[in-house]
């Protein structure tokens, strides 16, 4: 999603200091000090984690550190609320699967492919989504 360049009320948006971090092994850039979740969003990343039981995707929901939907594994530490944790240069940000960074079997192949993938979107296969939904109904 885009950054707002110029706003009718807030004026020109401040340009932050650009820093590099990794997301599931891929190098991305964001503004130093902005929430990790914002840096991911401007890079087109919507999925922050998969739930432990049903393996369903979750992303930003409340954006004020209350709901914990956006938690990820940051520098090896799981359950970090990315919407209120400031981005620092060199941070290692990983999708959280349940409570860790180890992909679920159905995500493993995608995660591997993604590490090498240069495109902006997360290549989740249709099948992975279906699995999650079926599980939900069973």
């Amino acid at each position: 999603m885009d950054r707002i360049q110029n706003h009718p009320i807030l004026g020109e948006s401040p340009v932050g200091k650009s820093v590099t971090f990794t997301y599931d092994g891929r190098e991305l850039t964001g503004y130093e000090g902005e929430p990790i979740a914002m840096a991911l969003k401007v890079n087109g990343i919507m999925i922050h984690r998969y739930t432990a039981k049903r393996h369903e995707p979750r992303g930003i929901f409340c954006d004020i550190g209350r709901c914990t939907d956006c938690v990820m594994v940051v520098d090896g530490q799981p359950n970090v609320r990315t919407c209120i944790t400031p981005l620092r240069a060199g941070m290692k940000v990983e999708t959280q699967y349940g409570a860790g960074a180890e992909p679920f079997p159905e995500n493993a192949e995608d995660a591997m492919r993604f590490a090498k993938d240069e495109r902006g979107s997360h290549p989740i296969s249709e099948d992975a989504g279906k699995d999650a939904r079926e599980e939900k109904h069973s």
Partner: protein
Amino acid sequence: MKIERKEFIVVGAGPAGLSAAIEAARSGVSVTVFDENARPGGQLFKQIHKFFGSKEHMAKIRGFRIGEELLREAEEKGVEVVLNATVIGLYREKEIQVQIGTEVHHYKADAILIATGASENMVNFRGWTLPGVIGAGAAQTMMNLYHVKPGNRILMLGSGNVGLVVSYQLMQAGCEVVALVDAAPRIGGYGVHASKVARCGVPFYLSHTIKEAEGTDCVRGVTIAQIDAKYQFIPGTEKHFDVDTICVAVGLSPMTQLLKMDGVEMADTRGGYIPACDETGATSIPGIFAAGDVAGIEEASSAMIEGRMSGEAVAAYLGYASADEKALREKELEESLGALRQGMFAPKNRGKKLEKTDEGIELSEMLLEKGYIGDDEIKRFPGYRAEIKVHPVLECTQNIPCNPCQTACRKDCISIGDNITSLPISVKDSTCIDCGMCVASCSGQAIFLVSENPEKGTGEVTIPYEFLPLPEVGEKGYGLSRSGQRICDATVRRVRTSKAYDGTALVTIEVPIGYTDRARFYRKADEAQ
């Protein structure tokens, strides 16, 4: 274990907490405010619209500027504000536990104010957990604090003031709002907030709700459907929209956990499950106070007054103010708060269906169901008058506590009177000088300057405009109706910006003479509708 002693602890550095801290510090109380966030101000810094009320309530000032002012005042009064400090426990004898970093600190205070605010409510629908379904507060955080667009195409669920205001702000951020949906049969928020969204062409679907958010990895679309009186879906009424974001604004709940933990007496009210307290926020436990949304959901404006009342009461409780001083200040603040709690949207009118204004004028059903007032309906309200010379037309048709337009006009063209919830009157035979101050002062963007030139067969309409890019003089486009439909050609004749207008530009468009009562928005010719 070390227990540190504090005189007065405030939990929450939002509008209520900061106001209380300032008020108490003014009397000499030493105040410490804890807030779990990295910056103070609560939600004020996400509020980029102009506030309602009268001058004493900081009306026509944008929320984030009020936030800046509160912080400045708190600093000036020597209030200690501790950030990234989460209060995790409140116990007997006013003992409080605060987590700062990885450490837990213990404090005891002579008085404690809980001003923790509220959290957003949610509704469940199929797919509601998908990435791309967000709270309205999240949208405000992204766009107004971090300058990031929450989405490109967005559906808003909820027509209360939050849903309406955030829809407008989304458009200001450059997002497209495809529809505004509410399960209720009538719009919950102010008619003026709805109208400024409707005139941009956003359709309102009342008695509708979300059936499903579509997508497997994130939101790709949404289906809404109409519901019957028993809130059941009516088959065959489904409508699909391609969206990447669904924004949910379905009310707030007071965050009362700390108060409950301390054993404060609670009450089940229309404003939620809230602490039973007196007008100063004093709860059933002496020395424990509550103010702002945690004591009943209202606006930031009332939270600030409630905070001040609690601050004053704490000063008296701790012996810093005499009973007389307290009574005097309390009376003043009570009157101020009372003024905000009047009108059709007052807490006492929650859930009631009103038919007429205080003046006895039949309300517009269309405004309540579609978000805009009918072209013929506007004529029965006192803000309307027909005249060839330039004059203000005030499309303010509900009794809401707000009066900056009256003070903005120095030529007495606008009259509200002493009761701030009265409908504004466009005064007959007054002389408007086209200064535009009323247009910019109206927090509801409901004032238009209108004139006609019968010889030329044209008329001019001046509209408030808060979008970018600004139209240019001489530019051709369309006049849009109150419902956002193209109704006539329009040429931009004048674009005014001024510090006094505070971000609201005044765009004057020339339209064919029959359209001055109908054209209420402008769009450039090559822009998609």
